[in-house]
């Protein structure tokens, strides 16, 4: 399977995606503007709270082509962060008290400067999170020692596993991904990840393999733990339930499967003011592979940069200017405010 970008698909263009999502569109059902919902809740303009997380997307290159990927990542994507931009991230971090650096992609480990970057962040005494797709660990010999590398730097590993049933995982992430993920999880468990008392955190991400919202995070975690332990002898710490946002390949899936209107309606109907107040963009800054700054990884993929007059690139990082910005919202934001809420850390309400 190719990325939408490689297929020259209309949805590879972020402007077209925003047209589809726009509440004033003339085709299909209309949904109330997200900004109007926020206004009703007294949250417009949406303002930052304390900046606690710097999420850095080190590139769109990936060994997988998942059907729901909002990054449109894949082996055919060549956009990756340079060491120069990584150094600018380190320089920016050094001027702040941001304690958590969340590395994402693509498969972040495929960036040739990934280990150098983790070492640099670790040397600043900050907690590194790596959003590891698991299969990269067993994709090639050069990645087989990633678990030991993660241990050395106390990295928190967060990995997608949409279901404990192989069929539902493979339907979303590709044929054979479930079996390879189990092999990788055994390797992570073997060095202590996900094992009680080790202090090495291994969290799994559940996101629905279809046009429905995630269920109760606590119930899902209990079920995942029971099934993965019993059927595969695998341990992990927390399950983070994340809603799929109507962006890029998941948006393509919704339209192609005839589920777009129904799914958007579910998101709008499930709008939760508590989740809206706790959205992660309020305490996160997102850095793109080219160093541009965004309110979140989804805005990044929709080419919606931070709404500051200047300081829109990591080389010009200005905490005061960023803390005074209004967060950019659009229709996809309904995904983070539905039901129990959704963020890169799971449910928010």
């Amino acid at each position, binding site marked *: 399977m190719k990325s939408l970008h490689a297929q020259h698909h209309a949805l590879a263009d972020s402007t077209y995606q925003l047209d589809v999502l726009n509440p004033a569109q003339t085709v299909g059902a209309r949904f109330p503007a997200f900004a109007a919902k926020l206004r009703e809740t007294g949250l417009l303009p949406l303002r930052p709270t304390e900046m606690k997380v710097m999420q850095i997307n080190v590139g769109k290159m990936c060994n997988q082509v998942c059907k729901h990927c909002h990054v449109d990542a894949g082996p055919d994507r060549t956009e990756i962060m340079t060491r120069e931009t990584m150094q600018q991230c380190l320089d920016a971090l050094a001027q702040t008290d941001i304690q958590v650096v969340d590395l994402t992609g693509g498969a972040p480990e495929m960036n040739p400067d990934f280990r150098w970057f983790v070492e640099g962040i670790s040397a600043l005494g900050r907690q590194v999170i790596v959003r590891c797709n698991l299969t990269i660990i067993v994709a090639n010999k050069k990645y087989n020692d990633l678990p030991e590398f993660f241990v050395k730097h106390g990295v928190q590993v967060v990995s997608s596993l949409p279901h404990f049933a192989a*069929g539902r995982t493979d339907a979303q992430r590709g044929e054979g991904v479930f079996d390879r993920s189990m092999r990788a999880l055994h390797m992570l468990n073997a060095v202590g990840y996900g094992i009680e008392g080790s202090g090495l955190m291994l969290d799994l991400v559940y996101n629905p393999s279809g046009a429905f919202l995630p269920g109760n995070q606590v*119930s899902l975690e209990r079920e995942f733990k029971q099934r993965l332990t019993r059927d595969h002898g695998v341990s992990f710490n927390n399950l983070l339930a994340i809603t799929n946002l109507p962006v890029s390949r998941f948006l393509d899936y919704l339209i192609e499967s005839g589920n777009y209107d129904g799914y958007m309606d579910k998101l709008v109907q499930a709008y939760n003011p508590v989740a809206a107040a706790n959205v992660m963009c309020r305490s996160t800054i997102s850095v793109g592979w080219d160093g541009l700054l965004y309110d979140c990884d989804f805005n990044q993929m929709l080419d919606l940069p931070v709404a500051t007059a200047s300081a829109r690139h990591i080389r010009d990082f200005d905490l005061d200017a960023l803390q005074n910005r209004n967060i950019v919202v659009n229709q996809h934001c309904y995904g983070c405010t539905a039901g129990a809420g959704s963020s890169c850390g799971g449910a928010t309400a």
Partner: protein
Amino acid sequence: MSDASYYNPADLAKFGKISEWQPEMGRKFFDYYGEVFKEGALSEREKALIALAVAHVVQCPYCIDAYTADSLQKGADEAQMMEAVHVGAAIKGGATLVHATMMMNKAKELSM
């Protein structure tokens, strides 16, 4: 041919409107309904699967629609959902067949 049908998928979303003509009973029913499906001695997923099985046994299209979606949302997979329907089918089939004991009793009573 008309497309008219006794069942319209859009009517599922109007379920709550049954309270309009009898608010007090409607409220009591939906309060009870909500309480039943809360996590308790059974998990929300187990309750969704039971509802899915019963939906098939009572052959309610609205309920099949609603509890297929709900089972998926609660984390059930295809195998669990189909097994639940088989449980319903087994009970329905068994309920038919167990009545054969009445037939056998009556036939024996009437026969030499």
